[in-house]
């Protein structure tokens, strides 16, 4: 298989400088995780010879991809680790998980089903989830940390209002968080695109597949991806851009969907845009509506790990700086720790909180010193975790466009 050849090439590219391990947020706080260099390229040499390492080690990787961004030699370290995890899962060896954790990961991987369930009667779900006895039970039965900031549920996002009919069309991929936990933000994204003259098409997408993959359900993740691609294919063929407002969905669409053997895979990477990446391109072409009202606000910005990995810089920071009155500074204080559902897990909650500590401190310090009032970041998981860790309100950057456009 070609894959093997690639791995060999990647292995040689690793010069063992340890920069990845030195900057790995998990290795820094978890003594049981030897670090990306050890479980990635180092162990890969043995894996190629059929010698597997303790699989528990692989499960500590939070899939934040900091190692890949860090590597001066371009080695795809996280991909190696995820690949090893998948092979370990397929092999007869135990994946080192207890039955409880296996069941928990089955649940957490299904953000979509949880969302559908949670949004049947959102206020009821939220009430139940806020009962501390319930959380204790969930910890004992499901292995979900009782302290974890589980996001609340709201009425499911349904694109509504006057559909703008236009020959300028985009497809919007809201992702589970916006769809089930934060429909107002999804609606805000639609409003901003419509305000710029776009008709926004929102097919009934499934979960992008990242939570499934992160919880060890690789083939189910790919099945979801294929279903989504089938929904997108006619639009992709017609040349429509696909817009994401969640950076992890965006990364999956750009990095993993193109590798699938499915119709539409050849277009998806080329045609996927992060919302602000798309808006910035409009700005560069002189097509963005820039009749902004002044929004007097000073913001701290956190770049989600899966935005950094996309290699597009921080377009939301650039764009918000066009709005009169907006002051925004990129804190650059590392990973928030949550990494999707990693920090919700009972055995990983403390690790996640330790990972995010420098960020929470930087947020609290910035607010205390009056350098900014509130936080903004694209990723729903980061929003929840930063609020949990620092107590400072954190919203999606699209909300400042809504205010600037007075929508």
């Amino acid at each position: 298989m070609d894959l093997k050849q690639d791995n060999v090439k990647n292995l040689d590219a690793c010069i063992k400088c340890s920069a990845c391990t030195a900057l790995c947020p998990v290795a820094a706080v978890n003594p049981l995780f030897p670090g990306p260099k050890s479980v990635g390229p180092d162990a890969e040499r043995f894996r190629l010879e059929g010698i597997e390492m303790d699989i528990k080690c692989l499960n500590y990787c939070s899939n934040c991809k900091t190692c890949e961004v860090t590597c001066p030699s371009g080695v795809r370290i996280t991909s190696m680790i995820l690949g090893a995890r998948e092979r370990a899962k397929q092999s007869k060896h135990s994946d080192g998980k207890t039955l409880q954790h296996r069941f928990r990961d089955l649940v957490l991987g299904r953000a979509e089903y949880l969302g559908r369930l949670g949004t049947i009667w959102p206020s009821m779900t939220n009430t139940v989830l806020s009962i501390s006895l319930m959380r204790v039970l969930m910890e004992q039965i499901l292995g979900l940390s009782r302290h974890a900031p589980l996001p609340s549920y709201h009425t499911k996002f349904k694109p509504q209002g006057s559909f703008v009919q236009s020959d300028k069309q985009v497809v919007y991929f809201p992702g589970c968080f916006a769809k089930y936990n934060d429909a107002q933000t999804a609606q805000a994204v639609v409003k901003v695109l419509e305000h710029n003259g776009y008709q926004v098409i929102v097919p009934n997408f499934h979960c992008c597949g990242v939570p499934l993959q992160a919880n060890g359900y690789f083939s189910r993740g790919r099945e979801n991806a294929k279903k989504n691609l089938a929904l997108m294919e006619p639009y992709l063929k017609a040349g429509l851009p696909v817009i994401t407002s969640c950076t992890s969905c965006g990364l999956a669409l750009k990095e993993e969907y193109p590798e699938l053997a499915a119709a539409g895979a050849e277009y998806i990477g080329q045609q996927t845009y992060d919302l602000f990446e798309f808006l910035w391109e409009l700005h560069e072409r002189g097509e963005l509506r820039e009749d902004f009202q002044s929004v007097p606000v000073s913001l701290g910005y956190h770049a989600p790990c899966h935005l950094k990995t996309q290699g597009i810089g921080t377009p939301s920071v650039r764009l918000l700086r066009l709005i009169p009155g907006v002051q925004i500074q990129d804190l650059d204080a590392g990973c928030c720790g949550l990494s999707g559902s990693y920090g919700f897990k009972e055995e990983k909650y403390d690790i996640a909180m330790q990972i995010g500590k420098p960020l929470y401190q930087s947020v609290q310090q910035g607010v205390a010193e009056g350098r900014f009032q509130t936080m903004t970041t694209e990723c729903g998981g980061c929003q929840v975790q930063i609020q949990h860790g620092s107590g400072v309100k954190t919203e999606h950057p699209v909300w400042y466009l809504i205010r600037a456009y007075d929508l």
Partner: protein
Amino acid sequence: MWDGIVIGGGLSGLIAGIRASEKGKRMLVISEGVGSLTYSSGVMDFGDVERLKEEKNHPYALMGETVVRAGMEYFQRLFPDYQGAWQNSQQVLTPLGSPREADLVPTGLNAGVLQKAKEIVLIAPEGMKDFFPEVIKAKLERVYSKAKIEIYPVAVEAFDIWRNSGKLITGMDYAKYWRSDQGAVNLKNILGKLTEEMACSSSGATSGEKQGEKSAIIFPGLAACFSNVLKGVLEEVPLPIVEMTAFPPSASGQFLYEALKQKFKALGGELLVGTGVKKVEFQGKRCHTVIVKSKGKDVTFSAQSFILATGGIFGGGIQVGPKDANESVMGLPLYVPAQWTNSEFLGEQPYAKMGVEVDPELRPLAAGNQEPLFDNVRIVGRLLAHWDPWLDHCGGGVSLASGWLAGEIL
């Protein structure tokens, strides 16, 4: 449209980005990985400027002494934690304990005080990777022959599980630990206890001040630079504490990288890390666009000016094959010596001088031509031709001076 795009996020690239941003330019730095500062000791060498500025084609000769001085002063203005003065070198310890000369040194690394010491205590953090206390002790005994050298093991409870599970603890892990709230408190206790023990053991010792004149502590895996908390802790200790430079990954290099990034971002600069430039587009004698390999598709960025800070062979700016060498981003012509290597391993290696030849404004030149190839492209740092950082000890100096100059004239 950006005012300037810097390709390469190491020392010279970030200095160029910071200087230009400070002058109000909108700057983007594009960097393949985290740059090579994590590999570096974090100290800045300038070398013998008087001699090097007379050497034909050397970057110092091209830029002139005023620019080299400006680079040094600018860096110290940005980071007052770095100490040093023009052509007045200081001593720092290598990871194996030999003293070596350096020009700009982060707080704590200056080892000058060891020369007068009668008693040197070498802290040995337990289980620290790439740290060889016995080797260092032997070296120190030879260099500081008047001093008594003692190894003082320090075990940190927080790393117990690391040691028990066989996980390596790098100097960087220790350095990060001391910077944490808990670590700083622990450091204060350890140093308090140690100085007390030293005061008791030194025969007839009376005051702490006297003790301070003849005793010193060497503390590997500690980097107080840029940390006010740690500097505060160390100030309270009556004895001088000398840090050591480290093998990669090096905490001092990493903390400098963090400080440079913070400064650049605070000035409104944007940093794109993790992807390289795939292609560059030119029109006549001007570069106008770079195409970046982002995930899924290529992304283009346009700018008025470009700074190439991609490094040399090690940093990836120059790609070397069995017979040829190429500049990896713009395909610029390179100076390549006829003979590349020398059989004497630690002697002069001609390949070290490979690089792009430039005019005094750092614009790239074609071989034998004094007319710049491009008007809005500038070359900085290791990619410049005709210098050898290992023989001339001027790596920091060339990077700071050329980075500052490129940012200044952007």
